[in-house]
């Protein structure tokens, strides 16, 4: 076989590391389906193709239904039943077949028109709830369409090993499913450095390059692919020489990571003995063992919204209580910081139609400017019953370990006060019912909105701790969208303005003698860590797999040098100057 030509594509580096493997095109939910006209001769063939897909889809649903009857919530069983009914609907069976005959279009385009018709009807109603109902139809159609194109029905959790996933865009719920032992790398057309899919890819250690022309790749004959997530390079059909070079690079990466990991039980302290505590960010409660193994002092940020991102429906108070309790116990006295649900706004949840809580999203509708919209604590205060259920679950679990509560996206002191009042009310209620809780549960504020950074002195007085979330803070301060390829250049996580704000927050926290923890992605960047220490940060929270690197970096610095570095950094007023200064000063 003739060797295909080596092609090198440049993209945006998102998650470091090298992946070598076989390409797999992964079809996202809204990917275009081919629309073609068919000839009269092909009608019967097309109808047979459709019937077979319909048949397979029904079998899927029956299998899912029998699985859920044993363990799933009753709502889901009911939805699956309804979807089955829809597939037996005359409009779906004979109706579609008639349309194929009449219009001479392939099944894909007929479904697209059908969905459009329903969308138009429901949208004219201006009723968010009804508009949501289109999803049932979309869902059923997609299941059938998926069987028309069987090759693309692969699930993210069931990829063959050494897969390089090529897709238009990654969504968080799919990325969470991916396994680092099977998926060697991600390559996408859309996506930014701090999108949620990117955060998860980095946490899992899966290399990822975005801004790559996937449509072009589809046209090439692909045999193997190398992804260099550190340089943002995708090499298609590498020559033997290139392949060898990257295999060696990969081996080197693995060895140095192993070496760092073997030292991760050591304390995070500077050469001159200042202790810096490293906590872990956590999405999946099952990964607590991993973070302890990597030497974490506890969980510095539990992103509780992943509890339903993965199940696509709101967990009940009881379910949450069981999970939090198990986590607190597994940590054996180490702190567990639970951030209340950070959802709504741009953190859209692809909830199942009719899932618990879908109405909460429906009534907000599509926001014109979701990043500045009703999300996180705003969302929770709009629906206090959600917040109350979560707080009750946390308070009940607090009897079993060291639990702290963290409020996301605080933009006004009033929000902290409201949450405190609610906690006091719940605590009184639980006490009346003789349910044990911890005596004092610390409540902290996320500092990720400019207003809260500016007002940090007041917040520090009333909160028990502060947590700087640099991902969002940078996006809001610089007014640069985190996942927009055209603004990701402006999104600079150590912009002079950000350094000044961090210094302000640390000073306020120190004045009120309250701890401050930094939990953005910058906390895992060896070139930024020394400045952050120099600015006075003594607690970091990073993805578990970064802990060895962070500790290793900290052990190479003296506190005085770090302070000098930070002072020097604060003198540079433009992003470019600061970048040059840091590049020259932080190499060790």
């Amino acid at each position, binding site marked *: 076989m003739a060797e295909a030509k080596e092609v090198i594509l440049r993209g945006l580096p998102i998650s470091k590391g090298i992946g070598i493997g076989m390409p797999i095109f992964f079809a996202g939910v809204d990917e275009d389906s081919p629309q073609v006209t068919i000839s009269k001769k092909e009608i019967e063939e097309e109808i047979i193709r459709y019937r077979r897909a319909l048949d397979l889809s029904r079998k899927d649903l029956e299998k899912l239904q029998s699985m859920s009857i044993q363990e799933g919530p009753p709502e889901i069983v*009911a939805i699956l*039943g*309804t979807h089955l*009914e*829809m597939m037996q*609907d*005359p*409009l*779906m069976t004979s*109706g579609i077949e008639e349309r194929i005959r009449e219009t001479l279009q392939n099944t894909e385009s007929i479904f697209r028109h059908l969905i459009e*018709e*329903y969308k138009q*009807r*429901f949208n*004219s*109603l201006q*009723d968010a*709830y*009804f508009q949501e*109902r289109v999803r*049932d*139809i979309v869902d059923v159609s997609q299941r059938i369409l998926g069987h028309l194109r069987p090759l693309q029905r692969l699930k993210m959790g069931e990829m063959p090993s050494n897969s390089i996933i090529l897709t238009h865009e990654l969504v968080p719920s799919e990325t969470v499913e991916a396994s680092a032992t099977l998926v060697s790398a991600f390559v996408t057309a859309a996506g930014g450095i701090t999108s949620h899919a990117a955060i998860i890819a980095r946490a899992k250690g899966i290399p990822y390059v975005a801004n790559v022309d996937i449509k072009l790749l589809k046209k090439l004959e692909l045999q193997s692919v190398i992804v260099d997530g550190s340089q943002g390079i995708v090499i298609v059909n590498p020559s033997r020489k290139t392949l060898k070079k990257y295999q060696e690079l990969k081996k080197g990466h693995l060895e140095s990571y192993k070496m760092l990991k073997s030292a991760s039980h050591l304390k995070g302290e500077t050469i001159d003995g200042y202790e810096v505590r490293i906590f872990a960010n956590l999405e999946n409660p099952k990964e607590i063992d991993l973070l302890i193994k990597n030497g974490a002092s506890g969980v510095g940020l539990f992103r509780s919204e992943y509890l339903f991102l993965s199940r696509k429906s709101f967990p009940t108070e009881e379910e949450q209580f069981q999970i939090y309790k198990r986590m607190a116990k597994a940590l054996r006295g180490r702190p567990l910081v639970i951030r209340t649900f950070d959802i709504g706004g741009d953190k859209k949840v692809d909830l199942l*139609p*009719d899932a618990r809580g879908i109405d909460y999203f429906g009534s907000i509708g599509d926001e014109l400017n979701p990043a500045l919209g009703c999300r996180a604590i705003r969302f929770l205060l709009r629906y206090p019953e959600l917040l109350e259920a979560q707080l009750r679950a946390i308070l009940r679990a607090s009897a079993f370990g060291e639990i702290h509560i963290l409020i996301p996206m605080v933009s006004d002191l009033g929000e902290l006060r409201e949450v405190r009042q609610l906690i006091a009310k719940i605590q009184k209620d639980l006490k009346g019912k003789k349910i044990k809780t911890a005596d004092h549960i610390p409540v902290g504020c996320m500092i990720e909105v400019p207003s809260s950074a500016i007002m940090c002195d007041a917040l520090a007085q009333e909160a028990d701790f502060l947590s700087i979330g640099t991902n969002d803070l940078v996006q809001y301060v610089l007014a640069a969208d985190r996942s927009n390829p055209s603004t990701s250049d402006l999104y600079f996580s150590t912009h002079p303005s950000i350094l000044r704000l961090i210094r302000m927050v640390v000073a306020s926290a120190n004045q009120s003698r309250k701890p401050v923890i930094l939990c953005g992605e910058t906390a895992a960047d060896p070139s930024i860590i020394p400045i952050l220490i120099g600015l006075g940060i003594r607690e970091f929270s990073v993805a578990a797999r970064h802990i060895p690197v962070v500790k290793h970096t900290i052990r190479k610095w003296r506190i005085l040098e770090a302070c000098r570095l930070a002072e020097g950094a604060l003198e540079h007023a433009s992003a470019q100057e600061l970048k040059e200064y840091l590049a020259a000063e932080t190499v060790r």
Partner: protein
Amino acid sequence: MKLIRKVKVKNSLGLHTRPAAAIVKLLQPRKSAVFFTYRNETINARSIMSILMLAAKKNAQIVVTIDGDDAEATMEYLVNAFDQQFGEK
């Protein structure tokens, strides 16, 4: 026998997927032909997709036409289901 009657959608969310499925299920053992007419559109009430197509919200007045041997009993069942808001009350 042919019966025609107006019924009102009483449940707050209108004729969405669940009520539509309930109607189709209720009609399965019945023999008569059943049609809904709403805003000058008449559809077969044995089809979930068609019922959804009506996009009937709360308080919509739907004309029910039932034609067949068990029309009377079918109408009674159907009206009752609308009254009971398909178990969503």
